[in-house]
């Protein structure tokens, strides 16, 4: 069967999306032929997940977008319509109920087989569950609880459920990072399942940042960079290096401006630090130095800042300016002169009930009080000075913080910490979900801070950002440092290759 001769299973046209003044998707179009595996790749923040969420009806697209499923127009932003059209999703978290059995999970959203008087006919239900899994070429003990299954078995259950709920009318299956937590051997089992599904003529949209999987599985690949579609190509026309170039090319907006400073004494030192993902880590950051940490999801990069600052339990020693910082004591970390700009801005960064002024002054409000009373003039004046320094754009200091765009919120969070004159600045994904202009401004501010003698640690999934900012970059894989790049060696492509475990 030649996929190209029939109407595409899915045809998305001119999808754009704006969040609070920031355009995160620009006219993205994408089509999937029957039986095709179409990979969607891009760095974090490139708009992959936004596109999936628009397709799923989670977000509404900006006007002008359209979607055709099997040649029929469907309304984007309406989850029911897309569901009726036979588009199914297996999201990264799978959406299973861990404490229930496989049978129950398969019946959820599909309905139980009923017997006399409306009671559940368990025998028929169990048989149906087994059949659903066999249809994708997989066998699992359907009576087992989902929480006791292997990652690949859980994914299989999720796929079986998606297929089963669309018996006969399934047109598109969207798999969002299905292998994120899967060992290599299990990935092969998953591919067999996917191949079984594609042979039934279903179009598959496969989102992943494991590039070797893309080449093994996909027919075509679409690359997103900063919300723009930069290419849709047949995988046979590309090699891994070419794909990496597409993903990273043309985004390094400006050269590094900070002159090579002479780093000072060590301000932050980690010895034998260990967390949920990090196995063992030693690290020193000197005054005036910007050290980056790269690594894919699950490498330990995501938890490092939280471990150091005390937001997550850790073992091992952390010393700040020679003084030991115990685990799980964020207020002690602050007192020692440490600051953290967390990755999850909405959950950990901004305080959404407070306005811009209160957020900007949150860490320093004590200084604004004489005796116990906050002096309102100083309160306003300092907030105004922070927002000017950070070039925050806000309707007023009294506006709710959540009315600001992501970039401006991030500037407030950063400004709040810079006001404390920290000695050690931890930045976790400092420009995630931030538009290009604000990103450049934040980068300049970080340069500035480091040149004043602050020790800066940047954990980022955006390798170009690390190249732009850092004097030195450590690459984590499976919770350990696998490589260290210094000065001119810090190059986006080398970081990406080493993070993915490719030989460069």
């Amino acid at each position, binding site marked *: 069967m030649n996929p190209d001769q029939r109407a595409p299973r899915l045809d998305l046209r001119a999808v754009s999306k704006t969040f609070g003044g920031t355009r995160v998707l620009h006219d993205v179009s994408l089509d999937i032929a029957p039986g095709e595996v179409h990979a969607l790749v891009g760095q974090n923040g490139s708009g992959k997940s936004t596109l999936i969420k628009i397709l799923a009806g989670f977000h509404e697209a900006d006007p002008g977008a359209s979607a055709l499923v099997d040649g029929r127009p469907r309304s984007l932003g309406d989850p029911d319509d897309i569901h009726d059209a036979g588009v199914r999703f297996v999201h990264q978290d799978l959406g299973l109920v861990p404490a229930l059995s496989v049978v129950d999970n398969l019946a959820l959203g599909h309905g139980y087989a009923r017997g006399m008087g409306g009671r559940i006919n368990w025998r028929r239900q169990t048989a149906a569950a087994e059949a659903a899994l066999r249809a994708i070429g997989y066998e699992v003990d359907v009576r087992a609880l989902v929480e006791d299954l292997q990652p690949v078995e859980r994914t299989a259950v999720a796929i079986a459920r998606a297929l089963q709920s669309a018996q006969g009318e399934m047109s598109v299956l969207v798999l969002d990072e299905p292998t994120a937590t899967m060992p290599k051997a299990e990935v092969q089992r998953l591919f067999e399942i996917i191949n079984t599904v594609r042979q039934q003529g279903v179009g598959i949209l496969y989102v992943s940042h494991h590039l070797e999987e893309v080449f093994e599985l996909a027919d075509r690949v679409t690359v997103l960079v900063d919300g723009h579609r930069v290419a849709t190509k047949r995988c046979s026309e590309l090699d891994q290096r070419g794909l990496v170039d597409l993903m990273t090319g043309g985004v390094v907006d400006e050269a590094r401006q900070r002159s090579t400073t002479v780093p000072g004494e060590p301000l932050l030192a980690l010895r034998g630090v260990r967390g949920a993902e990090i196995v063992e880590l030693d690290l020193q950051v000197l005054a005036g130095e910007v050290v980056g940490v790269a690594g894919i999801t699950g490498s330990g990069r995501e938890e490092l800042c939280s471990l150091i600052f005390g937001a997550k339990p850790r073992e091992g020693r952390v010393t700040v300016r020679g003084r030991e910082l115990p685990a799980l004591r964020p207020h002690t970390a602050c007192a020692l002169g440490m600051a953290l700009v967390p990755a999850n801005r909405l959950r950990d960064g901004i305080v959404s009930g407070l306005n811009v002024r209160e957020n900007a002054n949150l860490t320093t409000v004590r200084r604004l009080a004489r005796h116990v009373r906050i002096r309102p003039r100083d309160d306003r004046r300092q907030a105004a000075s922070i927002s000017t320094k950070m*070039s925050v754009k806000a309707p007023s200091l009294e506006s709710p913080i959540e009315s600001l765009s992501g970039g401006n919120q991030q500037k407030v969070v950063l400004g709040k910490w810079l006001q404390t004159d920290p000695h050690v600045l931890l930045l976790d994904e400092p420009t995630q979900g931030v538009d290009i202009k604000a990103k450049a401004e934040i980068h300049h501010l970080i340069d500035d801070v480091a040149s004043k003698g602050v020790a800066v640690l940047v954990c980022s999934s955006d390798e170009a950002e690390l190249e732009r900012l850092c004097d030195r970059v450590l690459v984590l894989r499976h919770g350990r440092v696998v490589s260290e790049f210094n000065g001119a060696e810090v190059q986006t492509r080398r970081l990406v290759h080493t993070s993915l475990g490719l030989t460069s």
Partner: protein
Amino acid sequence: MKRTIKERSVMTSPTDLPAVGTTVVDPPGVTDPGSGPRGRPAWSAGVLRLDRYSGLYLAVILAVVFSVLLPDTFGTLSNARVIAASSAIAGILTLAVAVSMAAGTFDISLAANMTFSICLLGTLLTSADLPWVLAVILTLLAGASIGAVNALIITRLGVEPIVATLGMSSVLAALSFWVADGQTILLDGVSPTFTEAGQATIATVPITVFYLAAVALVLWFLLEHTPLGRYIYAIGSNPQAAKLAGIKVLRLQSLSLMMTGALAALAGVVLTMQLGASAFGAGAPYLLPAFAATFLGATQILPGRFNVRGTIIALYLLAIAVKGLQLQFPDLPWIKDLVEGTVLIVAVSITARAIRQRRTR
């Protein structure tokens, strides 16, 4: 340069910027199209600020309407005194609710705490024969200690606040019975200054109103003008972000729960002074109106925030509405419960929606 926060242009001033290389900064006065003031309907921004003071206007309107309808019963000075005095005790308990809600925690045992305090005070005054000032201080300390125990259960053992304090309510009911033997204690032999402290009037205004005013003033200052208050609101809005800003979340939540306990005890003390007897089980009827007024208060003055001024407006709005309806329909004894229950549900739904809208944006 003097800055006024209403100026739209002050936020971007290129001259004060650090050297940012090639970055282009918008000229003053230009803001993102998406960052304008959103989410406020136009009608609310007028001079009346209906988004903030609707309760106040409604209270005034209701007072006028009932005074016209019922000039002999509602529209009298003595009725105004009754409303003011009876609301004072409810008001202290309402502020007790608000102070823990502001910190994002919850204490449903405060009515039981009030009941217990009344029994404890009565016993200390009669059986133990303590001087009343000492007895009052011990009662307030006991109330604060109950708050501290709640805090320990919630923050150290990780029990949900509603479950922890529901359990505590039952424990306190048992303790109350044990302390007072399930009886109302008459305070005949107690110094007359004790009841004087609850029944006197200052310039014809009942003294209890001044107690409420004092509590309100202290809490208002604490919550809106001190770093502590700023921290409490930060915790109430987003405890995770507050913790990562170096705020000691559990400690301040514990402090709030202790204040709640002490204020609940104070409500019991004032009620005992006013009645001249320690009435058994007198706290329970105050529970629901206190929560109703607290949630209604969060829709006023500083919408979405449990604040003192809004709570006071809500308190009197509720008191006027209930009293007016009771006098208008004397044969409907259930009208108070109906009004308070409805107000609780409606106010919570409004507050919850405001908070949800904020979160999902």
